[in-house]
């Protein structure tokens, strides 16, 4: 089959572009070598923030991000949740020095400038808090803070944002192939005309043809381009997050790492996250993992505002690579979050374009820009972009969890989680329980996952492997590591996809392996006992 565009990479930029292209009538093929959001789009801070940090260096980034954040709220209201931030005024002394007071004042002014952008994303204006007000909100903060300024942001389940874009793209005719790696760009007379690919599940190989190839392989793209004799310059920055088993605070708190870098400790869904490191990364992206030194660096920074993080239960550390534009000289933090579309025509591959940089929060605008360009390159008539209006699947309306719980006979809390993940499609998920009461089996008590939801996902959400349920449902991702859910989910998935028992056991082993990678750097206290339990539970599942 012939396509108009082949998109390489199932991160938010590849998927957003595939969706936009499909909505504008192009025949799209998207190839992703792993699961959707396997790269930075899954391993980021999960914030649809306006990027106040970039207000000074790149106010355009801030404005675009804020405007797009507003759109994303309209497209997928169920996936977003408000995260109010506190920027405490710190001091090493009993009373603030003049300099510290000046910094506090500057901070306040800074965020009142950010307030200008807040209406774009339904954000609340910043507020100056006294020390007393601050401690009333977050009594666990270390003593001696002199007050704070607030600012308002939104959190999101970034994995699901990607999945919804993929589903929408598919719904509008795109072919989305996960676990399929692009190998070589096929060329004819200085033009890129297609790619060869290999399916990593079946081993099948093939070629796909299209006049335009959009390379959105994130941190993998420098190496990918090099193999094709082309150049993508990038300064990949490794970012590690730590995750706690519960919410440590109700508010996000901005703090400083030992080297002065800005970090934050914040609630994200039912967990608290510590974000993040930012270090140049020269290795193979596939080898990336969290190290002991990164864990300690983050804990030290977080403990400078919440001393009790030292007692908290860390459940995992996850990582990803920022795809930052190349620049020689500046510190990692100071690198621009702008993006760039590279045209490889001069390297003998006309029709091949690579995307570098950008932000999750601005994915829609980035995709729109890329799609406009693609239409021009293909000499198509311009078609108006609809991605700022057309809801993502489930984003059409907000479902009433209490009513659904009553109608389908499931717990209110479970229905709430299903609504969070599926929005207006929650009823469709829960209806499965009416037809087959066995699907009321609660597979995960932590995330509130019913057997019905596993089945729904496998049927409708482009699941090819058991590990895909990590990103779709956070299955086997939390503190329990898959103790209860892993085997049952494997059985359910096997039924749906017709896996034989050997395959089922292999898939189960891979699911457990993925969780182990994320936990291994933080095994301590109760989480270490949990690992012992988990290994006792799953010893019979070999490699």
């Amino acid at each position, binding site marked *: 089959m012939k396509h108009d565009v082949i998109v390489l990479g199932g991160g938010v930029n590849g998927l957003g572009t595939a969706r936009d292209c499909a909505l504008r009538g192009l025949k799209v093929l998207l190839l992703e070598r792993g699961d959707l959001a396997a790269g930075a789009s899954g391993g980021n801070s999960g914030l649809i923030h306006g990027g106040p940090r970039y207000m000074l260096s790149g106010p355009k980034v801030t404005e675009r991000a804020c405007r797009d954040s507003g759109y994303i709220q309209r497209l997928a209201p169920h996936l977003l949740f408000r995260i109010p931030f506190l920027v405490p005024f710190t001091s090493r002394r009993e009373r603030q020095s003049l300099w510290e007071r000046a910094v506090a004042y500057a901070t306040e002014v800074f965020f009142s400038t950010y307030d200008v952008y807040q209406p774009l994303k339904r954000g609340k204006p910043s507020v100056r808090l006294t020390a007393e007000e601050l401690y009333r909100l977050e009594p666990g903060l270390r003593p001696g803070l002199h007050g704070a300024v607030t600012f308002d942001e939104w959190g999101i389940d970034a994995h699901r944002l990607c999945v919804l874009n993929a589903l929408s793209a598919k719904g509008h005719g795109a072919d989305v192939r996960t676990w399929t790696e692009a190998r070589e760009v096929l060329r004819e007379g200085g033009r890129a005309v297609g790619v060869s690919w290999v399916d990593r599940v079946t081993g099948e190989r093939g070629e796909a043809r299209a006049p335009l190839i959009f390379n959105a392989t994130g941190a993998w793209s420098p190496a990918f381009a090099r193999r094709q004799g082309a150049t993508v310059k990038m300064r990949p920055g490794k970012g590690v997050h730590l995750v706690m088993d519960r919410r440590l605070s109700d508010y996000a708190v901005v703090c400083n790492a030992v080297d002065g870098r800005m970090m934050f400790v914040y609630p994200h869904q039912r967990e608290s996250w510590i974000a993040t490191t930012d270090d140049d990364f020269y290795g193979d992206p596939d080898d990336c*993992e*969290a*190290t*002991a030194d990164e*864990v300690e660096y983050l804990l030290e920074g977080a403990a400078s505002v919440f001393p009790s993080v030292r007692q908290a239960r860390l459940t995992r550390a996850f990582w990803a690579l920022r795809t930052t534009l190349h620049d020689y000289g500046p510190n990692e933090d100071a690198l621009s979050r702008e993006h760039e579309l590279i045209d490889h025509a001069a390297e003998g591959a006309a029709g091949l374009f690579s995307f570098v940089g950008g932000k999750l929060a601005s994915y829609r605008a980035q995709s729109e820009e890329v799609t406009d360009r693609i239409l021009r390159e293909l000499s198509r008539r311009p078609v108006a972009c609809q991605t700022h209006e057309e809801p993502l699947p489930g984003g059409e309306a907000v479902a009433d969890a209490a009513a659904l719980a009553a109608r389908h006979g499931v717990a209110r809390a479970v229905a709430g989680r299903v609504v969070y993940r599926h929005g207006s499609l929650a009823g469709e998920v829960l209806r499965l329980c009416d037809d*087959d*009461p*066995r*699907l*009321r*089996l*609660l597979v995960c008590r932590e995330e509130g996952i019913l*057997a019905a939801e596993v089945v729904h996902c496998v049927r409708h959400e482009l699941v090819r492997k058991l590990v895909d349920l990590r990103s779709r449902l956070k299955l086997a991702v939390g503190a329990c590591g898959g*103790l209860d859910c892993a*085997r*049952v989910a494997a*059985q*359910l998935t*096997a039924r749906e996809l017709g896996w*034989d*028992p*050997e395959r*089922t*056991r292999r898939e*189960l*082993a891979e699911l*457990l*392996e993925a969780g*182990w*990678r994320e936990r*291994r*750097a*933080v*095994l*301590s*206290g109760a989480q*270490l*006992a949990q*690992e*012992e*339990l988990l*290994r*006792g*539970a*799953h*010893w*019979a*599942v*070999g*490699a």
Partner: protein
Amino acid sequence: MLVVGGGLAGAVAALAARARGATVLLVRRSPGATALFGGAFGVAPDLDALPGDPLLGRRSPLESARRLAARRPSHPYAVLGVHDLDEALGFAGAQLSVLVEPADGRPRFLAHVSGGLAECGLCLHSQAAGDLRRVRGLAVVVGFSGHLGFDARLVAAGVGRLTSAGGPRSAAVEASFFTGPGDGALRPFDLARALEAPGAAEALGAAIRGVLPRGASVALLAPVLGINPAARVHARVEAAAGLPVAEVVSDPPSVPGLRLDATLLARLAGAGVEVLDGEVAAGGGPGRPVIVAGETVEAGAWVVATGRFIGGGLVRRDRMAEPLFGLPVIASETGAAGLTLAGRSPVSLTFRERTAAQPLLAAGVAVDPACRPLDEAGEPVHARLFVAGALIGGHEHAADQTGLGVAILSGWLAGRGAAGEAT
């Protein structure tokens, strides 16, 4: 004599000491890893056996333990020696005879709920008919049509992998059972309790009888045949089904684990061991009084069987520590026995491959051949202080299928040793 910890290791130590005439007090804070085990008493898997090797010719647990000891010098079998293993297993089997089949020196092969296989030295009565080494003909795995928690097909495929090695042929069927409105959402314990009700086990037996293919020689079931042994669920199902019935090995939450825990407590009481619910704090020791649940306790000899991370015998916060005596914690499985790992990071004590032996999870105290813990200098800490079970380092007890074998051997040695010292 005082035993700290009431898992299998502590219980065997108490019973072995009692059998030698000691007066024994056992203190335990809560159920430990023992209450989570799946039903198969792992002693020593045969590391040299290939999947296709005939089951009948497989090595005995004792021989496998000997080979394992030769290969892994920091494993407790290597440190303690295995000459007393058969006697210890025999002792444990006899003490737990209401629940456990007698040891006969041969390995048993049981199907696991995940489709894997468990090789073990002892097993429960309710599992014995499912020993794939002995079953001839056709093993039929029976699922419940109304419940998705147990996948008969997956288990049958696991059994089928042994057919060429002389195991039975296998098949999977579904019995129409647990089809009530809320049954699909039940958890293993709920299923087990439901089967204890009058008539339930018989109804299940009849349902099984109705779906058995011709030539079935055993029915393998989910490990949910009752929690309370007095309800005799297994025997009732078997009688109604009209053929031998066996539970497969469980993963947690494990009904067989709960049964073992209850049986241990009953046996301790029967043998005249005083059991106290409570926590032993640091500061005590042989001849040094300690306050437990408000009572002052003094004992001439101590057996510490506080388990690993689940039991609480080891804790890791910033560092790894043994909280009762501050015993040094060693690494193992790496070949570098004696390596002090207290302060090292989890990353440097684990391997990237999940299925590799993980030093972090094999951490524990070092012992001499009499089960006495060693100090930094490699000397016994105290002549009358003993340790047993998962607290002993050098084996990844939860995952290497030697956990309960080590608990029994070391419990037996420590209990006898302590009784000898105490009297």
